């Protein structure tokens, strides 16, 4: 089981959390820690890139929802980059497509933050 979390600042003052691997009940705390740390540092406009994520479950969705709720309290938002049809299906089923901005590429996700 693996999860890769890479955080980087983009040129337009947004932060990108790039995730790879599988996000489940075991690995989601690591994702939560990365997002929480960014928010605690005052970064409220986030792009979470799920392009390299092969699998996500409800605990992973819960981490994303929790992050979105926290940044919205500060006027920020979370946009997602997702191209995996199976993961898109999960967002569709749960109705989260109406909550998150979901984009096919990082450029679109960052542009929509502005």
């Amino acid at each position, binding site marked *: *089981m693996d999860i890769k979390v890479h955080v980087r600042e983009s040129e337009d003052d947004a932060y990108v959390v790039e995730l790879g691997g*599988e996000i*489940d*009940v*075991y690995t989601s705390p690591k994702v939560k820690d990365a997002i929480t740390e960014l928010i605690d540092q005052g970064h409220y406009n986030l792009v979470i890139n799920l392009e390299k994520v092969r*699998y996500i*479950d*409800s*605990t992973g*969705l*819960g*981490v994303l*929802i*929790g992050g979105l*709720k926290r940044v919205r309290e500060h006027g920020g938002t979370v946009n997602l980059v997702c191209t995996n049809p*199976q993961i898109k299906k*999960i967002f569709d*089923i*749960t109705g989260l497509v109406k909550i998150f901005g979901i984009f096919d590429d990082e450029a679109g996700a960052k542009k929509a933050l502005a």
Partner: protein
Amino acid sequence: MNQPDTGSEHLGTVELRIPSKPEWVAVARLAVAAIANRLPFSVEEIEDLKLAIAEACTICIQQAGGSESIDITCEAATTHLRVEVRDHRYREGAEASKRPPVVAVEGEGLGIFLIQALMDTLDYSVDPHLGTELLMTKRVGA
């Protein structure tokens, strides 16, 4: 619960017991995927099964009942896969009062919702004394 197709032939039963810990959920997920591969499920249907079984195991763990293990029983048939996921909290005389509180987490409740959406049937019970039990069926090509 809707009954699986009556004309179906039983192919075999596989039983798996995993420790009731997050790091073992992936093992259940992959084992069920391997079993589902023996049936004519599509790739998408197998992905649905993997997620549903993982959600069921996660529910058992998140109920934090102190059960040491989760039992997963897969009954494969020509037309469907029936999966039972259960833990054994307090089944052997432990006191209900020792049950740790359920920790509220973001997204709680999504697990059951996802299983219902991804599987064809689902019966479940969460009992503080008897434990958690989920019984679900996925039909081939449904």
